[in-house]
């Protein structure tokens, strides 16, 4: 058994309500919103309100000591500002910088540059180099490089709007299992035309200031920013003699397994995530002093989250607020931005306000409008994402010790393996889904669904205990189509279908729905290290939970345009098409193909190998 307590020893933040913790604290105490007209983002939707970080890219570069011509995407710049603050507070030294991993959540990555130059790139080499940092994994590496961390020790999580919360969970699991004694974990996301338009096609943007939990709420306001915490083991805290800011006493990750872009009526995923977090922290509902809700302000989220909170807390619901009413919805960064806000609330004894709220919704949460001079021992922070990726974190005052966890390293076996190579058709998907369901699926989604469901069928596992997906570039074909349409035809008359299948976690989310798997669900995107990291994450799950069967997949695709750009950029020829491999890992040896050998399986599952070994 282990009682590895996970301490928070540093934190940093940049958002629409301030750069650095002092400014953010001031805004929170004053109840000042950072949501307003668009200044930096070049978009046709000038009528929309957003939570923009006030600095331009140039000003961020200057803060970080980068040259004016450094082509660094805004997500990486925002990330670097926040990581730097967190590292300084934790007092990491030069030696630490070489070993401490950076675990970051993002979905937008370098889309800001890509959307600016996508049409140019097809005819001219002038801005082609920016494509090299388009993907999320490279964006995290850029952040690491700017602040002086090792870019080789990065992990990127992309579970849409819960990405940062899941990065913190991954970091905590590394500490609980003794794989690392310190990690920097959080998330970063810049505003992009791509996702502003995407959310717009779903008609879930409020054109005025958002009103989370209000009866007349109309939707969300997008925001941007970054936040990171330094997580540290007890042994490391003692050795370094540092005073922790808080304890990450509990956390949970569950899948709603309901819909790609909407939460279920009974908030099942959110309910399970909160219950898991409470169980791990060994806390009763009455002990939670404040909930920082996901609270996006959309009719669907706030209704579903209200139901979930009421299911967990019954008649002892603590004060709840959504600080997205001040920061805007910072999507992939929201989990860590709100974690740092919770830290500030705990350290300074106040409840942040839920701005914009006026009228109670039917059977809904009545949020707090802000209270000062309170003592908070334990606070909860909710983060939910597309694909039903729901997560919950609980922070406690430093004295709290964590729940004992089983600490065993079970033998893990490969139960089944299914592949679909780049030249194969995706017709087999018809075995698993109706034509009405298949009509909207892109090629990669069909391939991934086919290999996943084939592997599960061969393993005799209808519902796995967890789903972990690796992808380098995500849903490239759909993202490209949406981007082309937006760049060529403008920002009006775009449809939602391409966007809702453009997030990296589209596959894992759909697999949750198809297998009714409410368990741990995560998508890892770390360039060529994606699949190895996914396999390692599966091992963490086997060690820390009672999971018996885990579905792990590696799915990637390439398009004609992308293959041409890559050829011009690197000289490499990559085939056009999709490649998908799925395995079922199990602690049960019955009928297994072999024992798990991570090195061998990594080679076998590597999408670049699958693409090349034709």
């Amino acid at each position, binding site marked *: 058994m282990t009682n590895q307590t996970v301490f928070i020893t540093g934190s940093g933040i940049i958002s629409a309500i301030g750069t650095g913790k002092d400014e953010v604290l001031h805004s929170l105490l004053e109840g000042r919103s950072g949501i307003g007209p668009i200044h930096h983002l070049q978009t046709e939707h000038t009528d929309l309100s957003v939570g923009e970080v006030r600095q331009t890219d140039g000003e961020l570069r200057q803060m970080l000591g980068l040259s004016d011509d450094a082509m660094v995407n805004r997500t990486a710049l925002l990330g670097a500002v926040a990581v730097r603050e967190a590292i300084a507070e934790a007092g990491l030294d030069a030696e630490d910088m070489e070993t401490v991993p950076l675990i970051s959540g993002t979905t937008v990555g370098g889309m800001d540059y890509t959307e600016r130059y996508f049409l140019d790139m097809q005819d001219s080499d002038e801005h082609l180099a920016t494509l090299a940092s388009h993907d999320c994994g490279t964006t995290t590496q850029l952040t690491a490089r700017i602040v002086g961390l090792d870019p080789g020790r990065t992990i990127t999580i992309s579970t849409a709007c819960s990405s940062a919360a899941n990065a913190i969970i991954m970091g905590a699991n590394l500490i609980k299992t003794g794989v690392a004694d310190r990690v920097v974990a959080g998330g970063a996301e810049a505003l992009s035309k791509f996702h502003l338009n995407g959310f717009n*096609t*779903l*008609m879930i943007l409020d054109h005025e200031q958002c009103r989370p939990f209000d009866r007349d709420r109309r939707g969300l306001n997008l925001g941007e920013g970054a936040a990171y915490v330094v997580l540290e083991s007890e042994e490391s805290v003692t050795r370094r003699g540092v005073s922790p800011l808080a304890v990450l006493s509990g956390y949970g990750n569950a899948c709603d397994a309901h819909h790609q*872009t*909407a939460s279920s009526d009974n908030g099942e995923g959110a309910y399970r995530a909160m219950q898991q977090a409470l169980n791990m922290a060994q806390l009763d509902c009455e002990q939670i002093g404040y909930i920082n809700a996901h609270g996006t302000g959309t009719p669907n989220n706030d209704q579903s989250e209200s139901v979930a909170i009421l299911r967990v807390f019954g008649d002892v619901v603590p004060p709840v607020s959504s600080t997205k009413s001040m920061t805007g919805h910072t999507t992939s960064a929201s989990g860590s931005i709100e974690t740092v806000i919770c830290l500030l609330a705990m350290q300074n004894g106040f409840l942040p306000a839920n701005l914009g709220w006026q009228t109670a919704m039917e059977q809904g949460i009545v949020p707090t409008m802000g209270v000062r001079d309170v003592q908070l021992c334990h606070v909860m922070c909710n983060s939910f994402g597309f694909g039903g990726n729901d997560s919950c974190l609980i922070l406690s005052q430093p004295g709290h010790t964590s729940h004992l966890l089983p600490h065993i390293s079970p033998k893990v076996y490969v139960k089944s393996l299914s592949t679909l190579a780049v030249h194969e058709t995706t017709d087999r998907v018809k075995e698993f889904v109706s*034509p*009405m369901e298949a*009509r*909207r699926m892109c090629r990669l989604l069909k391939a991934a669904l086919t290999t996943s469901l084939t592997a599960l069928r061969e393993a005799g596992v209808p519902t796995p205990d967890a789903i972990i997906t690796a992808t380098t570039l995500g849903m490239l074909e759909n993202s490209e189509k949406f981007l082309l349409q937006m760049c060529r035809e403008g920002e*009006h*008359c*775009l*449809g*939602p*279908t391409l966007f*809702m299948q453009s997030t990296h976690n589209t596959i894992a989310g759909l697999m949750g729905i198809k297998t009714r798997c409410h368990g741990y669900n995560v998508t890892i995107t770390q360039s060529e290290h994606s699949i190895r990291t996914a396999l390692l994450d599966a091992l963490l799950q086997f060690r820390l939970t009672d999971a018996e069967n885990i579905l792990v997949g590696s799915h990637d695709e390439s398009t004609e345009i992308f293959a041409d750009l890559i050829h011009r950029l690197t000289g490499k020829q990559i085939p056009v098409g999709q490649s998908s491999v799925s395995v079922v890992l199990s602690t049960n040896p019955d009928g297994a193909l072999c024992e798990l050998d991570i090195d061998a399986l990594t080679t076998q599952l590597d999408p670049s190998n699958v693409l090349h070994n034709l």
Partner: protein
Amino acid sequence: MEELIQQLKEQIIDVLNLEDLTPEDIDTDAPLFGEGLELDSIDALELIVLLEKNYGIKLADASKGKEVFRSVRVMADFVSKNRTK
């Protein structure tokens, strides 16, 4: 009106990727959502885009779609009264 109905059916099949259907398969008076074609909320959003793109009709509220998309006939009626192109 019959011409507009036929045109709408073709556009619906195209926009919603209903590859296995022909315009004749769509009952002009059957509900598009729930029963009938069994379309969902994402389809409704795509149909809102269809109205704006092809007929210059802007629905600001997604819930208005529920009335307009009751059947192809209702949709055609709405288009003929509100179209700007």
